[in-house]
Structure formats: C-alpha cells, structure tokens
C-alpha cells in the first residue's frame, strides 16, 4: 500500500502501521464514511473525536477487520487488538482464559499472567467475568488486547461506561501500558478532555471524513488546566460544533 499522505496532513517518514485510503462505507442510503483518508504511524497515540453517528466506530470496526462491506483502501501491517466499549468478556471463561482466548503462542499462560499483572488483576485471574466490577472488567479487556503485543491497539470508547474515579486510574493505566509497549493507539471517544489528556494527535470526524486535525504537543503527564490544552480544547469543541463551556 502506498504511503501517500493525503490532504493537508504532514507526517514524518516513520513507517505506517495502518493506512486508510478513500474508505467509504454506507448503511442503506446513508454514507457514514466518505472517501476517508488516514494514516497511523507506528507508536503514535491518536484520539478520534466525533459526534455520535459521525462514523468513529465504523472506522474502528473497519480497522479491526470486523467490516466486510467497507470499500476503498485499507491496509494494516502487523497485529491488531481491540478493546470495546463494553468489556465483552466471555462470561463462561474465567478471566485468565479470557485473556488467552485465541492466543496461539507456546507461552500463552505466562504471557497472560504478565498481562494481568500489568493491569493489576493478578488476584482476579481465576474469577468469573460476571463477578468483576466495571473497572476490573475493563482492565481484563485491556489485558486481553495487550497480551497479543499489538502493533495497533484499537480502543472503542473503553472508558465511557466507567465511573469518573475509575476512569482516571484507567486513563493512567492505558498511558503506562502505551509507554511501555508502544503500540499505535486509535482511541475512539467523544470526550475532548480525554483526547487531550492522552493523545499525540486528535482527529475530528465529521460527515464521514476527517474534518479537523490537531497535534497535542504538551508533554505528559498532562494536566487538564495546561494553557495549551485550554486553547486546543476550544478549537476542538468548535470543530465539533459545540460552543465552549462557559464564557472566556
């Protein structure tokens, strides 16, 4: 697949882990993705923002290989792992077996142990998924994605169902995991603050195309009140068609 950089996006020559070219997907009459172009560089953390129905999840599903009907160019080099909005643990498999599900490597058990330790779930390895709390289940889901050493980690609003406090700890966990393993991450979210807190690059999806793109240069760990982020937040909210909260 060509590494052509479409539109106004300028990128360093780092190898792409995924390239999407003129991707189109319609549901009946409605076009959800309209000749969308996107390139994901190895190791970068992208947040994909958009109103509901803007096609965020459709794009993620296409990248995850879950959409057979999307048309256009789509190439992914390396392995992909997904963590969904609902943790989607298999309820009749204990946590450890959920993590190793489909893992065809000889040391699957050890790798799962390590992944569970990383997300802080070692003690719950033998638990049934239905007995986990929301945060624990989402950790298990992250461990299941991580254990595959993905080159591209797709996160489909994995924090949106968590309570505010749990969300903060899981945000930090995702950042820690990302800085250790360095997969490229595509985080689908509708939370501007979450995007600014986590990502290197924030994309806004509108009308089936990438309508806006901002780099987030602030060093991590970031604080919500960082002045650079405040102005970026306003820009992004405007791109999403929302007037910023309060008057400044």
């Amino acid at each position, binding site marked *: 697949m060509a590494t052509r950089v479409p539109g106004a996006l300028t990128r360093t020559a780092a190898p792409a882990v995924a390239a999407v070219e003129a991707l189109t997907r319609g549901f009946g009459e409605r076009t959800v993705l309209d000749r969308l172009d996107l390139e994901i560089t190895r190791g970068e953390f992208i947040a994909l923002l958009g109103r509901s129905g803007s096609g965020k999840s459709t794009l993620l599903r296409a990248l995850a290989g879950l959409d057979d009907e999307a048309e256009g160019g789509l190439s992914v080099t390396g392995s992909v792992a997904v963590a*969904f909005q609902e943790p989607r643990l298999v309820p009749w498999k204990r946590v450890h077996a959920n993590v190793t599900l489909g893992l065809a490597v000889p040391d699957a058990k050890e790798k799962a142990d390590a992944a569970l330790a990383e997300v802080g779930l070692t003690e719950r390895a033998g638990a049934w998924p239905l007995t986990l709390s929301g945060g624990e289940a989402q950790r298990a889901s992250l461990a299941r994605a991580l254990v595959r050493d993905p080159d591209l980690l797709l996160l489909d609003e994995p924090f949106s169902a968590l309570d505010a406090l749990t969300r903060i700890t899981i945000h930090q966990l995702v950042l820690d995991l990302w800085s250790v393993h360095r997969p490229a991450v595509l985080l689908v979210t509708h939370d501007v603050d979450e995007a600014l807190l986590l990502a290197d690059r924030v994309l806004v999806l509108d009308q089936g195309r990438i309508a806006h793109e901002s780099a987030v240069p602030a060093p991590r760990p970031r604080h919500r009140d960082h002045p650079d982020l405040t102005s970026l937040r306003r820009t992004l909210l405007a791109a999403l068609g929302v007037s910023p909260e309060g008057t400044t």
Partner: protein
Amino acid sequence: MSVLELDTPVRTEPQPGARIRRRRLPGRAWQRWISPLVLLLAWQIASTTGLLPTRLLAAPSTIAATAVDLVQAGTLPTAIAVSLQRVLIGFTAGAVAGVGLALVAGLSRRGENAVDPIMQMLRALPFFGLIPLFILWFGIGEAPKVLLVALAVSFPLYLNTFAGIRGVDGKLAEVARTVGLGRAQLIRHIVLPGALPQTLVGLRQSLGVAWLALIVAEQVNANAGLGYMINDAREFLRTDVIVVGLLVYSALGLLTDALVRLLERRALTWRREFLAR
C-alpha cells in the same frame, strides 16, 4: 445490550435464585409439612372408617404395605428396570437427534432452511395422537414405546438448543474474530457454551415429557414395566398397586430432574456465582 441478552434467560428461569432464597429461611421449614401430614391423616381415617372405599382408593397404610410387598416379591424392581430402560434408550435417541438437528440448523443458514421447517411442522403434531400409527408401523413391542419417548424428547431439546445457538451474543462472536478464532474454535469456545444454558432448560423439559410419553405408551399396550403393573392392577381393582406405580413414576421424575439440576449447577458455575452475590 450484551449483558441484557445474557441476563434475560437467567432471570426467566427461577431455580438457582429460588434455591438460594429457600436456604436462607431454615427455621420455619417444618411448617410446610403440616398440611400434607394432616391430609394424609384424614385420608387414613376416611379409609379406616370405610368412608373411602378401597375399590376407589386404598388407605395409605395399605399402600405402604403393598409397596414393601412389591419390592420384596421383585415385581416393582423388575417393572422399574423395564420402564427405566425404555426411557433411557428413548431419551438417548431423542436427545442425539434433537441436539444434532439443532446444531445443523443453528450453525448454518442452509442447515436451518433444510431442518427447521420440517421440525416446526412436526412440532405441531400431537405426538400422542401418533400412537395408533406407531402401533401399525412398529407393532406392540418395545419399538413404539421407545420411539414415542424419543420423539417427545427431541422437540424440546431441538427448540431450546436452536434458540440457544441463535441467541449467542453477536458481540462475543466479534471478539472471537478480533482475537483470531477460526470457525471451529468459535463454535467450541463461544457458540456451544453460550447455547448451553438454554439447552439445559430443554433438557429438563424433555426429561419431564419423556416420563409422560412413557406413561402414555405403557398404558396403551405393555406386557412389562410400570405401566403394565398399573394396568394389571386395574383389572383386579388393586388401587393400592396403582398408587404405588404412580408414586414411583413421580419419584423417578423428580430424581431425573434433580440430576439435571446437579448438572446445571456444575456446568453453569459462571452464572451461579453471579446470581449468588
């Protein structure tokens, strides 16, 4: 949504939760024995005083004595063995057919198109109405009885297993796809375990109906087994033997039900711990 889909069958089926609740009320359990014992006593008094003639219903004490006699004479154990064998063979055949057809229909559209219309049509047949045909086809030996049981068993298992397979959460199938499971592994790890709770519901229904089918089949024509024992007793107005036969039927029914419940508890631990919380 996924949680909802998984939860619904759990909640419509009251057994596990109900059991837990019953255990939490140990003190008053004996009170539930009062009314049955009073009824039994009244029955005994009515029989002894001649208010209830023996040719209509024997006294409880007579029934108990008869039961002991029948066991000692070997009549009852033999009859139970014959009936149990019929149910076992019929049930096994029906279960294999029902679950097998459900797998064929559940796992592929083509299979569904081939199997499901026929099963839905056959389901509408009152299968006890088939007895005359079965006698014409298979005579009056073991075959029609066993086949009637098999037929009765296959439908609840087919319908429930098919529904169970189709009710498996599509989101889990997507997970299977993203972690790279092939079709065979998808069936093994996701589809079959996902269909299991519903299949077990079908199993309980089918065992209940298996005993019913056997009773009907044995009433019509038999020269051995519990049904034969009951019919034979009718000829001699032995209401005590008839009641013993009925009690044995219900005991066997309860026993098989308990077996399935044990199986459920073992197979569905992942759900039980959740419900017990």
